């Protein structure tokens, strides 16, 4: 069923009786060519691109709960491609390009909104670091502008320019960055994949991986065994638990990241701002809520909830940067589980088990990567070769000493 304004009009005239399910609630078949574990943004995008671009048939996505219930549904909706390192920037720029065509590709309005992402800097050294990064972005074909303090003030006059502990000295602006309606990304990919025959199987938890002679044969699930030619795991946050079923330990820890939204407010903040002297980033949703976040709590957790010290730290950053928000009220806070990798960058690679592929380690940058991650993982699953933009995301890079460490924090996952 194609979505359009005309279709809505027609349905409105007949009481909206004609809408069918956006995707089938499929039951598992005995076997598939490719099974994707994880019905989040990355898993659903992988299925979509497998079917749409690589002609894969007999593909299933297994989701232990309801699709989109993990990190794709609990992030701060920011998209950007403002990376420094060669291993990252082409990949995230590909993602940005895919975002830019997403609505037409999926026939689903995920509300991609390129409102601009501004990273503020507060010292000469930070400005040099942003210049280095902005130049890397430009040299990779992305957009970047280095703003001075006056230009920042012209954009956002309500920021604290007067009595700030750390003065705003400028910022790195990516105008093509912005936000996307996060849930709609999962739904749009699900609907598009379903329309090409992918089975999306909810409430189907994987309980075991069937491996014989070093090769994947299938999976055990709460809805019975499923044979599979290839299995792709895209369960970031819980990668450790799933890959342990294959006997693999990963360069990944699971950490909780909290996010926050205020009550609805009339438009006051057009784009995305990140504070450079504290942990705070913020945008305003189309509904009017200020959506914001900060640092991870910093300890291993699967609890999907955090604690007050980070809540306070984030709000301090917010008040330091935007002293007007004191009277805005926090409406809701939540936590997501992040795959924090050992260099802050993701992994999209084969594993030592033949036919078992891994996609994870997204730290807290997975949402913006969703389209490219799906495409690159689909490419890997379909062709057995890494996608050119994801060639650095190898599982063995730590052994080889080829880390992709944007923040330079080393093998300390909670500092990335």
């Amino acid at each position, binding site marked *: 069923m194609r979505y359009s304004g005309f279709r809505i009009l027609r349905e409105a005239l007949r009481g909206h009786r004609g809408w069918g399910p956006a995707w089938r609630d499929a039951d598992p078949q005995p076997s598939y060519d490719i099974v994707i574990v994880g019905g989040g943004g990355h898993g659903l995008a992988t299925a979509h691109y497998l079917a749409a671009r690589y002609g894969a048939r007999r593909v299933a996505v297994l989701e232990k709960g309801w699709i989109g219930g993990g990190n794709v549904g609990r992030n701060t909706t920011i998209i950007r491609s403002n990376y420094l390192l060669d291993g990252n920037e082409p990949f995230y720029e590909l993602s940005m390009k895919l975002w830019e065509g997403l609505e037409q590709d999926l026939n689903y309005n995920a509300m991609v909104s390129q409102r601009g992402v501004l990273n503020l800097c507060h010292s000469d050294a930070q400005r040099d670091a942003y210049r280095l990064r902005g130049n890397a972005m430009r040299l990779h074909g992305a957009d970047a502008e280095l703003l001075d303090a006056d230009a920042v003030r012209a954009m956002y006059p309500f920021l604290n320019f007067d009595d700030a502990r750390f003065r705003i000295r400028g910022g790195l602006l990516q105008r093509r960055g912005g936000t996307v309606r996060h849930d709609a990304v999962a739904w749009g990919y699900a609907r598009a994949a379903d329309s090409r025959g992918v089975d999306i199987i909810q409430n189907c938890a994987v309980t075991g991986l069937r491996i014989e002679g070093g090769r994947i044969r299938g999976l055990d699930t709460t809805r019975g065994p499923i044979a599979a030619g290839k299995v792709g795991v895209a369960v970031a946050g819980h990668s450790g638990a799933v890959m342990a079923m294959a006997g693999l330990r990963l360069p990944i820890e699971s950490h909780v990241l909290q996010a926050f939204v205020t009550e609805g407010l009339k438009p006051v903040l057009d784009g995305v701002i990140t504070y450079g002297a504290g942990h705070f980033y913020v945008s305003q949703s189309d509904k009017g809520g200020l959506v914001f976040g900060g640092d991870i709590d910093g300890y291993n957790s699967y609890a999907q909830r955090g604690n007050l010290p980070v809540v306070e730290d984030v709000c301090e950053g917010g008040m330091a940067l935007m002293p007007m928000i004191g009277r805005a009220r926090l409406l809701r806070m939540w936590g997501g589980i992040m795959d924090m990798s050992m260099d802050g960058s993701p992994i999209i690679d084969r594993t030592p088990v033949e036919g078992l592929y891994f996609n994870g380690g997204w730290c807290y940058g997975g949402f913006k990567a969703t389209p490219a991650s799906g495409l690159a993982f689909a490419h890997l699953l379909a062709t057995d070769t890494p996608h050119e933009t994801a060639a650095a995301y190898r599982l063995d890079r730590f*052994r080889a000493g080829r880390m992709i460490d944007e923040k330079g924090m080393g093998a300390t996952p909670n500092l990335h």
Partner: protein
Amino acid sequence: MTVAQPNRLAGGRIDRARTLSFRFDGRRYTGHPGDTLASALVANDVALLGRSFKYHRPRGLISAGSEEPNALVTLAHGGAHTPNTRATMVELVDGLVAAPQNAWPSLRFDTLAVNDLAAPLLTAGFYYKTFMWPRGFWERVYEPAIRRAAGLGRLDTAPDPDSYDRGFLHCDLLVVGAGPAGLMAALTAGRAGARVILADEDTVAGGRLNAETHAIDDAPGADWAAAARAELAALPSVRVMPRTTVFGVFDHGTYGALERAAPDAPSHAPRETFWRIFARACTLCAGATERPIAFPGNDRPGILLAGAARAFVNRWAAAPARRAAVFTNNDDGHRSAADLAAAGIEVVALIDTRADAPDCPFAAETLRGAQVIGTSGRRRLTAITVRAAGGALRRIACGALAVSGGWNPNLHLAAQHRARPAWDDAIAAFVPVPGAVPGQRAAGAAAGVFSTAGALAGGAAAARAALEDLGLSAGAPAPLPRTEDAPVRVTAFWHVTGAPGRAWLDFQNDVTVKDVALAQAEGFRSVEHVKRYTTLGMATDQGRTASTAAIGVMAALSGQGIAETGTTMVRPPYTPVSLGALAGRARGPRFRPVRRTPTHVFAEARGAVFTEAGQWLRAQYYPRPGETHWRESVDREVRAVRGAVGVCDVTTLGKIDVQGADAAAFLDRIYCNRMATLPIGRVRYGLMLREDGIVMDDGTAARLGPDHFIVTTTTANAGAVTRHMEFARQCLWPGMDVQLVSVTDAWAQIAVAGPNARRLLRRIVDPPHDLSNQTFPFMACGAVTVCGGLGGRLFRISFSGELAYELAVPARYGNALMDELLDRGADLGATPYGTEALGVLRIEKGHAAGNELNGRTTAAMLGLGRMVSGEKDSIGAVLSRREGLAGDDRRLAGFVPLDGTSAIPGGAHLLRPGARAEAANVLGWISSAAFSPTLESPIALGFVALAGARMGATLRAVSPVDGRDIPVRAVSPHFVDPDGGRLRG
């Protein structure tokens, strides 16, 4: 002129001796102390209070408490505006000004009410299906229109003028909610001597007792509550906190609470205080929230919850209307009818969905098995349409409809740790799961026990159980007061079917039964999917008034039970919390603490410009009269160091005192180069790797004795290096005899650098100490006395490349030492220099600093690869040999502009001449840049691939973000004195 408070009744708990004046929507009204803004508006017969989010439907109050979704107003006071404030939670004060929101040009005539006409198009999720063509129109046309229409209240863009505070509290038992259960719990624990905090969101403890008519021990329930308050106030271990909402529960008994200032608090008092409460146990007595029933037209102003109508009448003596009807599915609705009638309101009908409902003698008629299927009235209710049990329709004129769909326990604090509440058919509600939060017990209505007697008993029992858990004596149980113990009789009823029109579930977000049905039809079956697709439960009440009925509707549509349908995840906060309160005083200049150097006063007196270095404030440069640009000052300071002598406070560099028999062996593990061989009285440069082989930090180690070293770190890494060394000491090599202590703040350390440094120091260091090059050569160190006996330490080390020393004295003498150095060195050209000159000097000398040590740099990249000893086991040595790191051929180099004048931007990328400006052609980058007054040219440090750039090669420093492309020459990074003759001189 209207009649003052036309709907004010007799009685109530308001102070009629005083009359307060206030404004709403531009009109003046009056009320009394004890009123809320909501009750005063009810008393003034104001029914239209706001507009809904999506359809801009006229809306009035539906509740009397913190769950209110409709009556959100913007308060104006003292030049600041507070948007999205629930009228039900605003204490009325004289002069209060409140304005409606989300309506333009006015509340009565809101142009966006046109959305309501388009409602058939604006169904749940409609925006996902359209606005895609033509490409680009979403962001340019549709989204801006949607954003303009969205949002509720408006936020001032001026800084919030009020102050907030934060604090910590500790108690044995935290009692959340001061209704009958909470009061009884607090009394029980308080009488036993336990440390109790009783927190309640209302202005006065008592909860529903203040809004009910039934007696406790033969006196009004409110009187019993007043007596309980008095007793608690007299108990020394009890702290009663009204106006305090416990909004969240976190780990290990940590609760978050927000206390609002009382209206009569002094003006300098914090507007709100955020408390972190550490409770050994908690009794959750947060009461219950009544829920509406979904029926066509159920959102009209004048339709409100029955318990709220009862509260307005009983507590505030304010009648929602003179003629009212009641619509209920449970016996509590009958109680509301009785109280309304007792207050003189004509109850024209009680409509009960239950065929076997009892008769209500207080209503003109009781309609059993009947339903309200429609309403009318433009901006407020004028009549309802009732479908009788037999199907006959009747129209009944009334100005208010009191609705009761049953009560939901306020179980949020029991569910914030992700335990899903359990469905209890007997009361048709979700109840908390015992044990869901360690140390917490629910009691009273929050536990699904709705009678007053049950609440009193439950509160006492929960408190006694908590005391027992804590090993505290609860004493003999006291007899409980006598009071009503009515059973709960309810038959679940969620929404009216078989009648035309929209029936609202989520009032604020305009989510109707049809929207839920549509979501289900489109495959959004999980409660979380329905919530996210329709936005149901995402309004400012977080679903308190909407969710359960919606789950009931979903269960009916899907044919599942309610328990199987389940709830969405409960998240903090229980009610919204100001961001200002969560930040407390950490804002503006107080965002983070300021660390001042020991010579701060000296620098201030000399007019230094300061810069932040982490939390430190350091002198950046010292402008002199006549200098108009910072470069003039910096160039002068650099020349002073190169030509005479400069002094600079370098205290901020980390200093760690390392002592013990194994100190030398320990440092051999910490540094990649050898330290054990360092002679006493000598200093060595040290490079510290992370275990992954990347450079962590650099600094010096000075050996003061066989078992005693002082090591220095960079300013930025002082804390991290201490932590790292403590880790190595305690976790990796606990058997070593070594102790560490950070002495960064204990010693003021002053760099004295320049050809005249020795001459100057001879005037400072006491005579017995020989500073001659022979006795005290480059990299010497030792204890000295200065200025006539003050103990200090002298290190002959140089960051600038000049003949230089660093002199350390106890921190409190730092400022005086600076003064002395300048006084005694005046004829030698002694000049204070700041961090800017320090940076220029080190770039001229080719020393790496923070820009070079960015967490991705190997020792080899710095040209120090040979320092990594292969003969000992030091941290990071093994993994530094991995092929990816060992094979990285980028090296530190110096760069000068070919034209001798163009500045080289820090952060530029290095390319070959003629190469396309694209990433594939990048050979390296510029890490640090400065103007060198010594070379009289811009200079820079950077990293470049060996293969691409031999010394002398011409490259380009390309910086697209500022449109620059500078031809440069690669040179040695040691621009000044590459042979080191000066520093050894």
